[in-house]
């Protein structure tokens, strides 16, 4: 799976959890840039992304995930 495909699937997961598509996912996008992405929905986003790619994140990866770029990189390393 190339990066574009990953990003597009991540976007689908975000839309499903946040129930809107009023955002762009770039490497430098953080929770502050996306409406509704905060502590509570973060856990739901993580779970949804895990389901989409059939992977399981480690706590060590999650604690260093500061933006969408980090998320994509972690997914790539798990695939």
């Amino acid at each position, binding site marked *: 799976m190339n990066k574009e495909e990953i990003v597009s699937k991540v976007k689908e997961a975000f839309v499903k959890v946040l129930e809107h598509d009023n955002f762009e996912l770039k490497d430098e996008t*953080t*929770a502050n840039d996306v409406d509704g992405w905060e*502590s509570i*929905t973060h856990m739901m986003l993580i779970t949804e992304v895990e389901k989409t790619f059939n992977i399981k994140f*480690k*706590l*060590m990866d999650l*604690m260093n*995930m500061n933006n969408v770029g980090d998320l994509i990189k972690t997914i790539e390393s798990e695939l």
Partner: protein
Amino acid sequence: MEFVKRLQKSIEKHADNNVLCIGNTFFTYQDFAQEISKIRSEVSKKIPESEKLIGLVTNDDLQTYASIVALWFEGKAYVPVNPATPIERNTKVFELTDTKYVLDSSDSTVYKDFEVIASKTISETEVNLKPKEVKGDQLAYILFTSGTTGLPKGVPITFDNVNALVGAIDAEPEFNLVPTDRCLQMFELTFDFSVVTYLFPLLAGSCIYTIPKGAIKYFYIFKLIKEQKLTVLTMVPSIINYLRPYFAEINAPDVRYCSFGGGALHNDIAKEWSDCLPNCKIFNYYGPTEFTVYSGFYPYHKETDTKNHNGVIAIGTPQKDTQYLVVNEQNEEVSLNTTGELCLAGPQITPGYWKNEERNLQSFFVRNENGKEIRYYKTGDLCFKDEDGDFLYAGRADFQVKIRGYRVELAEIEFHAKAKSKKKVNMVAIDITNNLGNAELGLAIESEDFDTEDIFTHMKSKMPNYMIPMHVRFIKEFPHSINGKIDRKKLRTYFDINK
């Protein structure tokens, strides 16, 4: 004021130690002393002596923490407002307290109608940490909580109140911070729990680690535990609910103390969390904002001290100079093992809600004990005292609901619902009003859908029919208030039983 003088001494004595770690930047007590001096000099220049209540915008920076100490050294109180809260509500808080001056470290302020001191741009001054004299009944801070009428409810706390809190924690031999301690400060400064997470480290010369605004709290806390090797944690239980799926990956031998408060700590998760912290003492603290943060604790130990009621860990015994009293609806003391409302008396009790006589008449009462008039605060928490003198939490007075005339404890339903569930997930029992105006019971489950037949079979074997929830909703993530507590009001909106 003793604790303020001790703050001065500690800041002077620990000049070379780190005081704060904010977003990976460390500041020393020397930096802190400099910042406090600058702010208090500006405060004393610009604010008349008679103005005692000063607004404080709670950013996550050195200036905000220094402002609190600067105001105390100047004999003034802070009235904190969270910049993430709508400005209308914050302005309301300032109006209610007649606050005219606001300390704000933001790059540009939104408080145009107030006299704002921009605490980030004050020029250098000589260090001056000598506190002004204050009277014990002067206020140290006022915090606002949501009121039942929609108007925020102010809880003023005096210097004497804070001094009594410090004295009580000092008297506790099991809890002693040292200058090498690295302490978590995860709370908004508008939440009273924050007082113990900045004040105690400052008095000991320890370092305080804050959480950047906008960070995912539970992961950031783990990052601090792992990378900064925190030694002292103070948390609300909901944080470990989030980390629970990852407990197997957590091993934090550096943590010496972990204090919980601000919500019920459950026996099962306490045990699992305790396994992650092999060298740690766990304290289950109890105390309302109205009683200056803490009023007492239970020392939890996964093998030897696991006293609980319906799975909720005991709140233990009152701390030094505090008295607990469990009363019935006539404010009369009830006997051992009888549930009633917990009331607190002692030097940490607030002088009363800010300009709210009606509420004060409901929440405080005076009782004659051995010829002395003792003033009690009614917590709204249901408790009972056991033979050992430990107090056990039995739910909120307002979580006790009447179903078909029977009194029902929601915590009990939750306990039985969780007891035999194969899925270890959060469940909350809630009362919902139907079209007839009667209460019906709902069970909210924090999970994807699953079959609940075994849960219900078990509940039906343990409780009378009227206590069995009639409605079940699966909710992927429970709504939480800003302070990390489950928002039951919002949760109730998921039960659209009248459609």
